[in-house]
């Protein structure tokens, strides 16, 4: 059992800088948990507290059933992959991978067996005699992972392991990590600022900002039903559109007025708002670009630039001086003509997918009421 539990964990640096506030989380055994957030949000600090590389100012961290607050990093039965690989430059790949096993005074034969196994898994057998400076970025990353897996730890920690790689290699290594996870079948905590990595790798995602947990959920939950404006804006590319709106109460039903247009809210939203006796007033309407359809009805907007991404086109437009984006899927059967900049287009939101945020707190008033399972995800990450 290697669940990791955070109980009211707080980290305060010198001069009173609070990096992590009252962090409570339970990471299940064999779960792949991703911490995601912008720079300085406290995700790496939290990971380093699990590793024992940072002291905990307050609270408790358990690995398995063991309280590890005062346990040395080497005795926590964890391994960590660092952003800059942290390979020892004076050692060969073999010695780098074998380093931890030698420190544990494992028999030479066992060390050799484990190193060769790890090298085979990561396809680096032919690199074992090389030194890190003779390796490419991707190969170094594999060696760093090899050094980590050879110990067969209870928990894998990965601190932005793909950040130093180019886009192509990053995609490739992401797939490798998914495969590795299937083989290792243990608990992973993965830190990244890249939402694509978070969405593709995590069983669950912790979105953090300013040392606080903004939301914990599956990738589908976080994307489809963000808890607040921060999560809504952080997860998703292009990011969610936010439009000033008014929540109305007319004829016993809630309606939303945005950019001069009045939209009916679906029954599920009616139920959610009614159950909380939500008062009409100023709100922020949130709609993802792919749920904003260019057509003959909806709110008028002034078309701006269009970007072709390959399978889609991102059409930028101005609505009441606020820039919004609509994603138009492109198919080979139907051609697509981008609107002329300056021309008036109409954008119709898919009201089933609309989010309404409290203007003062940023809280999603419809959180949990959306159809978050946009597609059935087979459990491919696990055997």
């Amino acid at each position, binding site marked *: 059992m290697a669940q990791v539990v955070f109980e009211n964990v707080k980290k305060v640096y010198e001069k009173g800088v609070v990096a992590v506030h009252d962090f409570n989380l339970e990471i299940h055994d064999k779960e792949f948990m991703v911490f995601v957030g912008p720079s300085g949000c406290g995700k790496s600090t939290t990971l380093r507290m699990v590793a024992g*590389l940072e002291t905990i100012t307050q609270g408790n961290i358990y690995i398995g059933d063991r309280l590890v607050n005062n346990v040395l990093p080497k005795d926590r039965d964890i391994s*960590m992959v*660092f952003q800059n690989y*942290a390979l020892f*430059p004076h050692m060969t790949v073999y010695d780098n991978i074998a380093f*931890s096993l030698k420190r544990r005074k494992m028999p030479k034969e066992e060390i050799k067996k484990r190193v060769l196994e790890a090298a085979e898994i990561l396809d680096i057998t032919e690199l074992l005699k090389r030194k890190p400076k003779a390796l490419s970025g991707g190969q170094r990353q594999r060696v760093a992972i090899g050094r980590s897996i050879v110990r067969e730890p209870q928990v894998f920690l990965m601190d932005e392991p793909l950040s130093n790689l180019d886009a192509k290699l990053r995609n490739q290594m992401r797939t490798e990590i998914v495969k590795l996870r299937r083989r290792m079948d243990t608990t992973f905590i993965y830190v990244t600022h890249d939402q694509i990595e978070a969405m593709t790798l995590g069983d669950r995602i912790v979105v953090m900002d300013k040392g606080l947990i903004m939301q914990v959920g599956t990738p589908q939950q976080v994307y489809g039903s963000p808890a607040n404006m921060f999560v809504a804006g952080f997860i998703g590319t292009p990011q969610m559109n936010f439009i000033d709106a008014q929540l109305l109460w007319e004829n016993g039903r809630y309606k939303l007025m945005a950019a001069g247009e009045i939209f009916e809210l679906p029954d599920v939203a009616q139920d959610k708002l009614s159950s909380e006796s939500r008062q009409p007033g100023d709100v922020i309407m949130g709609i993802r670009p792919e749920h904003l359809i260019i057509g003959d009805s909806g709110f008028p907007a002034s078309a701006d630039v269009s970007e072709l991404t390959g399978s889609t086109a991102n059409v930028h437009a101005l609505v009441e001086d606020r820039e919004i984006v609509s994603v138009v899927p492109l198919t080979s059967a139907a051609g697509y003509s981008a609107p002329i900049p300056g021309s008036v287009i109409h954008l119709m939101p898919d009201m089933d997918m609309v989010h309404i945020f409290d203007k003062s707190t940023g809280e999603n008033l419809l959180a949990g009421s959306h159809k978050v399972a946009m597609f059935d995800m087979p459990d491919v990450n696990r055997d």
Partner: protein
Amino acid sequence: MRKKRLIGRTAVFITSAIFAIAFLLPTVLTITNSFMTQSEIDANYGQVFQSANSGSTFISEQVNLKFIPDKVSLSQYVRVLFQSPEYLLKFWNSVILTVPIVILQVGVASIAAYGFTRWRGKVRAAIFFFYVILMLMPYQVTLVPNYLVSRWLGILNTRWAIILPGAFAPFSVFLLTKYMRRIPVSLIEAAKLDGAGEWQIFTKVCLPQCRAALYSIAILVFIDYWNMVEQPLILLADAEKQPLSVYLSQINVGEVGVAFAVATIYMIPTLLLFLHGEEYLVEGIAHQGSVKG
């Protein structure tokens, strides 16, 4: 534009060549002249030293700086190596003073630098500041305290009076601290997670990466102490214990041919050390001066 650049480069080349020749001339002169016969030496430099022997500091206009011997002779070397054991004894004195200083200074500096690198805080900052101040002081300033401490410890006129202060030189600590700080913290953290203790982090992770710095420090310290004059003159009253560097200045008067041979022999260890570790020396100094990366 291209012509201007060519002229500029030529000027730089010529200036550099002049400086290089100026630096090399005394060394070349020493080496070539060490292969001259005694009669040729006398013919070239005799006037100078006869005057010096008679108490006059007059240098004869007849001094003949000659680079190529008329006849190559090993007579000066035979005299130094086989007929006058005092030279070898002095050479050995230099070895037994310099080698322990190099070993101890590199060892002490490594540990001290590791301490300065790994631990932060006000006390560390204060001690490091003290080191820097000490480093900035000319050696002559610390010579008197060294003398007093040596006398207090009862090691005056023993080799330890030279070796002990040499082992704790601040300059090496300063250089090595700068070098060690370049080692990414993540490497040390990775070693920690992999089960390495502090001593293993120091010996297995930190020191191997400082090889260039250690080598360059060893060479610099060796050169510094191999050529020392003031310390033995003040701290070693017994002439028997004094190194060749001190003795060289004395044999220059009167036996210039022998002096050339001794000086040439004296250069060999430094030269060999430099040639062996040239790559490390350049890398070490370049890193310390932040020329690289």
